[in-house]
C-alpha cells in the first residue's frame, strides 16, 4: 500500500517539476512538490516555497523549517512521520504572497497528493493554506487568528478530513506570543494524531 502511494506521489512530483501552468515556473530554481511519509495520517500544508526551499527543492528547510521541526516535536511527531507540502509548489518572486490564479493552477496537485495519502488530519499552515481548505469545504473564512486552533470536520472531493488551521511558522519565528499560540495548536495536533490524549486528559485526569 505504501509503495503504491509512494509511486503515485513521485508521479505527481514529476508533473510538478515539469509544470508550466502558471507564470511562477519562469522564476523557480527548483519546484517543491513536497515530501514525507506516504502512509501518514497527518499532512501539513504551507503556503509557498521560500528562498532556501527553492534552492533545495524541499519544503520548510530554512529557519521556518527548523521551527516546524520543533513544533512537530511538541506534537510528539517527527518529519519522517508526516507529509509536508505547500499550496503553491514554486517560489513567488521576492517571497510575495501567491496570487489566486497561481493557487488555482496548483490546486489539482495538492488534491491529487491528498487523494494518494488519504490522511486523517490536514494541518493548514497560515492564511493562504487555510483559506483554500475553507473554500474547498464550503466554509466561510474570516481570518487565520479567528479560526486557528479549532479542529473542523471537513469534506471535499469525496473525502473527509479533520482540518486543523494554525499560523504559518514563519509568522511565529520572531514573535513569542504567536509562537505560544502555534505551539498550543501543535499540542492539539499531538492529541488528534493519537500522540496525545484528547478528551481523556479531562475525563481520566
Amino acid at each position, binding site marked *: 500500500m505504501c509503495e503504491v502511494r509512494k509511486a503515485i506521489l513521485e508521479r505527481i512530483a514529476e508533473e510538478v517539476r515539469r509544470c508550466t501552468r502558471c507564470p511562477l515556473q519562469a522564476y523557480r530554481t527548483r519546484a517543491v512538490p513536497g515530501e514525507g511519509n506516504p502512509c501518514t495520517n497527518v499532512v501539513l500544508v504551507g503556503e509557498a516555497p521560500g528562498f532556501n526551499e527553492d534552492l533545495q527543492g524541499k519544503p520548510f528547510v530554512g529557519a521556518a523549517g527548523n521551527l516546524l521541526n520543533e513544533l512537530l516535536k511538541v506534537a510528539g511527531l517527527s518529519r519522517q512521520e508526516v507529509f509536508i507540502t505547500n499550496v503553491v509548489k514554486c517560489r513567488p518572486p521576492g517571497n510575495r504572497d501567491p496570487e489566486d490564479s497561481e493557487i488555482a493552477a496548483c490546486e489539482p496537485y495538492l488534491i491529487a497528493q491528498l487523494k494518494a495519502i488519504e490522511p486523517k488530519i490536514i494541518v493548514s499552515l497560515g492564511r493562504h493554506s487555510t483559506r483554500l481548505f475553507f473554500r474547498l469545504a464550503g466554509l466561510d473564512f474570516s481570518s487565520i487568528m479567528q479560526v486557528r*486552533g479549532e479542529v473542523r470536520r471537513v469534506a471535499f472531493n469525496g473525502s473527509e478530513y479533520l482540518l486543523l488551521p494554525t499560523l504559518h511558522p514563519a509568522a511565529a519565528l520572531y514573535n513569542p506570543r504567536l509562537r505560544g499560540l502555534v505551539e498550543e495548536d501543535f499540542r492539539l495536533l499531538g492529541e488528534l494524531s*493519537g500522540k496525545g*490524549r484528547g*478528551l*481523556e486528559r479531562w*475525563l*481520566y485526569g
Partner: protein
Amino acid sequence: MSVRFEFQDARDWRYLMESLNAIVDEASFIMDREALKLRALDPSRIAMVDLHVPREAFNTYEIEESQVKIGVNFDDLIKVLRRAKAEDKIIFEIEGRRFRIILAGKAERVFSLPLIDIVGEELPTPKVSFDVIAKMLSDTLRDSLKDAEMISDTVRFVGEENVLRIIAKSDKGELEAKFSPEGGSLIEYDVRHPSAASYSLSYLDDIVSRAYRVSEIVTVEFSTNKPLSLSFEIAGGGTLRYYLAPRLEA
C-alpha cells in the same frame, strides 16, 4: 454465543442508534447480565458517547454468557432500523457470527447482518465533576444551537448564578440566548461556581439534532474550560450521555 433482547418501540431504538452514529461509525456494545452498554470516542478523540440501558428497559433480555461483545456498523444497522413502522417492536438475536434484527408489527420482518470485530480499547468510567448543572427541554437546546450556527462555528456556555447563557460571536454578528428557572426555560439549575467554556458547534449540533429525539429533557453540565456533558434519559430507563472537549481560548 446466544443473546436475545426485545425493545418495545423500534423507532425509539432507531433514534438511539442514530444518536450513537453522531460519534462513531462502528463500535462494540457490551452486553452483560445487568445492562447493554457502549462507550466510545470519536476518531478525533474530541467527543465521547456513553450509553447505558439496564435490562429492566427491555421487554425481554436473555444472555447465556456473563458478557458478550456485539460489534456493529451503524450505517448498516440504521438502514434496517429506518424500515421500522410506528408500532413495530424490535427484537435482536445473536447466533454465532450473525446478528438478527426482527421488526415485529402486523408482519414480522427478519434482517440478518454480520457481526464485526472491532479492535479498540475499553474505556473506563469517566471521572469528572461539573460546576454548572442545568436541566432543560432538549428541543430548546437544539433551537439555540441552530441559532448559534448561523453566527459561528463555536458556542460559549456561561453559567451565572441565576442565568445560563449560550453565546455565539463572529464577524457575522452575535447571538445570546438566556435561560433561567424563573423564566421557565430551565427545569433545574445548580451553579456551584460561575463557569464559562466554549465548544465546537459542529459536534454539538450533530449530537443534539439527533439525540433530542431520544429524550425531551437534556441535562447540560460544564465547568470553566472543561468538557461539556449532555445527558439524555431514555424512555423506559437508561442514559445516553455525551462528553465534548472544550475549545480552549487563546
